[in-house]
């Protein structure tokens, strides 16, 4: 599966003007259609993206010589968008799976590393104790050396 280069994660905001009651109607219709994402932030974003695509299609149709030409051009765009969406969705699912696996593995690894860190502490303590005792043993043996 090919990969698609992601754009930078930087975001910006834009203010939208809409009457509350009008937006409520849109929200109800969107829920009825079952296509838009849940939540206001997601719905607003979806509406902007959806509207952009309609306006883009409108621009293509205006430039086209006739209905057939418009159809063919939009069909090509539809194919390109569908292909990109499929690859992106696959890449995203894979990244999310890896993320989940890494999270689980990191927890298990942390435990294992924690166990080894505790062992290192014990080893260092025992080494210090034995070094001190060796010094005392050598001192005790010194008169005969």
């Amino acid at each position: 599966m090919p990969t698609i280069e992601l754009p930078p994660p930087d975001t910006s905001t834009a203010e939208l003007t809409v009457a509350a009651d009008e937006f409520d109607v849109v929200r109800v219709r969107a829920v009825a259609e079952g296509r838009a994402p849940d939540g206001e932030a997601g719905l607003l974003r979806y509406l902007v993206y959806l509207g952009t695509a309609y306006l883009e299609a409108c621009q293509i149709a205006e430039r086209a010589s006739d209905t057939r030409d418009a159809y063919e051009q939009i069909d090509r765009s539809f194919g390109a968008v569908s292909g990109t969406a499929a690859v992106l969705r696959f890449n995203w699912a894979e990244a999310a799976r890896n993320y989940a696996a890494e999270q689980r593995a990191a927890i298990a690894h942390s435990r294992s590393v924690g166990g080894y860190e505790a062992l290192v502490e014990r080893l260092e303590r025992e080494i210090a104790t034995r070094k001190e005792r060796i010094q005392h043993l050598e001192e005790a043996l010194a008169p005969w050396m």
Partner: protein
Amino acid sequence: MDVELLTVDFLELEDLGIDVQEAFERGCAAIGNRITRDRITERPNTEAALEELVDLFAERSADLHLVRFSFATAAPEYDLSTRTFDAIDAHGREIQKDVVPSLRAELRRLRTREAELELALTARGLDARTIGPLVPDGDAIDPRERPGEGVRQARYLTPLPVRQSLLSRLLGRGRP
């Protein structure tokens, strides 16, 4: 109301000469007034089919941009997770393969020296057990090398004998 988009989305809108508010209003107008089938039912290249195609294209494009937004904004966390995992893994490997084996080796060396001194003192009639500090019973760590610690030795299998053809095996049958 504020809408949050990728900065690149704004640049793309600018390239298309489309205003965000305009796009939003067109999107609102489409909701409830579009065909939401997943395929074209009309004869291709007709006005009716074009309308269906535009609805399909708009829906697919919106979906693509939503996925791109979610993936792009989540990507830094995914990258951070990978780096964190790699760091923990590297630290764990360092302790397991380098630190612990060298400390165990140091402990072996010290125990040998300790035993030599104890013998020497015993030979001179002294009780070495009275000289401390002593490691409490049960607290002493096994200083022997453990499997999985240190550099793992590659294990090699004995190479397989050269494969003989059926004819050479038949000809060779009975020979010493």
